[in-house]
């Protein structure tokens, strides 16, 4: 690893100002789970590292009935996994977190870092996007809020500007009669990065018809992908086995997986089809029972 200047701001404003001064040669450092690997491999050689872990405003998980769940950017995966508030309000997140990487990574890595890294082989973005999550972003000139879906541009590329930091993830309360399911498929060890990860959310309207549907495919393209054509297959109708099957087959054509050690392109497309079918069925069942 090459040496670098190391700074520890204690406020978001200070951190953003330092990033601006760094003119692209400064990088935000939080948990460091991915950054240290990239730096050790020489893939990133920042001149300045700005450790934001001393900024207490970025910590903690809150729930407001109107706003939903607000997760601070510095919350670690393990904190999310074991949070009583999350277990009560949005247990799917605890279930997803149990399967992320290993306990050491979950203890170190942060939610903000996971989202800001643009790493495509990961789990949370799919789930958050299916829940219509938004992110709060601070910069040296102010603050903005945007849909998480709009963050991702390409492999490891996000729409964050040089002086911007994700400060919070906001998960709005789901409409009544909603169900969500995430299925992570690993083709080697359970602690490996996922081969495919599919999130599906269904919110019911009248007469058990699917009113809002989100199908989000992870690990099968440069960014998480909303399978909008597959969503359209289901919207407005009660879900049945045939419809779930059809949505799965449409979704498998809406992604762009690459062949690698976790499976061939063809294999991953087939897995997407199966997982979408299963996730939709479980989300629908969940929504019908709630």
């Amino acid at each position, binding site marked *: 690893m090459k040496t670098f200047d*190391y700074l520890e701001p204690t406020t978001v404003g200070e951190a953003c100002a330092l990033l601006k001064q760094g003119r692209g040669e400064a990088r935000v*450092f939080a948990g460091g789970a991915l950054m240290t690997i990239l730096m050790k491999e020489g893939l990133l050689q920042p001149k300045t590292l700005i*450790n934001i872990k001393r900024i207490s405003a970025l910590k903690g998980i809150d729930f407001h009935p109107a706003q939903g769940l607000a997760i601070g950017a510095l919350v670690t995966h393990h904190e999310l996994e074991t949070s009583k508030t999350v277990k009560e309000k949005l247990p799917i997140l605890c279930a997803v977190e149990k399967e992320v990487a290993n*306990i*050491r990574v979950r203890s*170190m890595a942060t939610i903000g870092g996971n989202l800001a890294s643009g790493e495509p082989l990961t789990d949370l973005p799919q789930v958050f996007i299916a829940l219509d999550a938004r992110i709060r972003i601070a910069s040296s000139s102010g603050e903005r809020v945007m849909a998480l879906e709009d963050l991702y541009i390409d492999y490891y590329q996000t729409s964050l500007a040089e002086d911007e930091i994700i400060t919070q993830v906001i998960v709005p309360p789901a409409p009544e009669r909603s169900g969500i399911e995430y299925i992570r498929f690993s083709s080697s060890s359970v602690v490996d990065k996922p081969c495919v990860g599919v999130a599906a959310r269904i919110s019911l309207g009248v007469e058990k018809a699917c009113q809002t549907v989100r199908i989000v495919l992870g690990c099968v393209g440069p960014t998480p992908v909303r399978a909008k054509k597959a969503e359209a297959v289901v919207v407005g109708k009660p879900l049945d086995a045939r419809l779930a099957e059809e949505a799965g087959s449409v979704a498998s054509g809406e992604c762009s997986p690459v062949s690698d050690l976790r499976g061939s392109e063809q294999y991953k497309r087939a897995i997407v089809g199966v997982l979408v079918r299963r996730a939709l069925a479980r989300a629908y069942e969940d929504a019908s029972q709630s």
Partner: protein
Amino acid sequence: MKKGIRFRVNGVDTALEVESHLTLLQVVRERLSLTGAKFGCGIQVCGTCTLLLNGKPVSACSVLAVDADGSDVLTVEGLAKDGQLHPLQEAFMEVGALQCGYCTPGFLLTAKALLDENPHPSEEEIRSYLAGNFCRCGCYQEIVRAIQKVAGE
């Protein structure tokens, strides 16, 4: 860039001047001569460099030493107290939960973190918490049994 850090290592207040790019593993092994934690994969997969940072298991090969400023660090050398091995160490010996021993410090510390968090885990919970520690000698059954022994006491 050099930076002064202060942290507690195995209960001892320690102050050091370190280069910003050094990892916690390098500093603990090379500056403090605590060589229980080993370098393995270097990418947070194998678990052989596990240390407890403020009670939580981390891959010390991927923690910057400067980032450990102000923390509490536990290495395998700090497990025994007053000449008495930790119950997990006793159980590992009794059950024979190791062959070459390279992974053992990481397993012991991860198991300690688990039991601190959840004193009576089920077998499934043990296996899931330890899924990120690799033992190439294949002592997994014995390791799980050793932890169950301590958890059951």
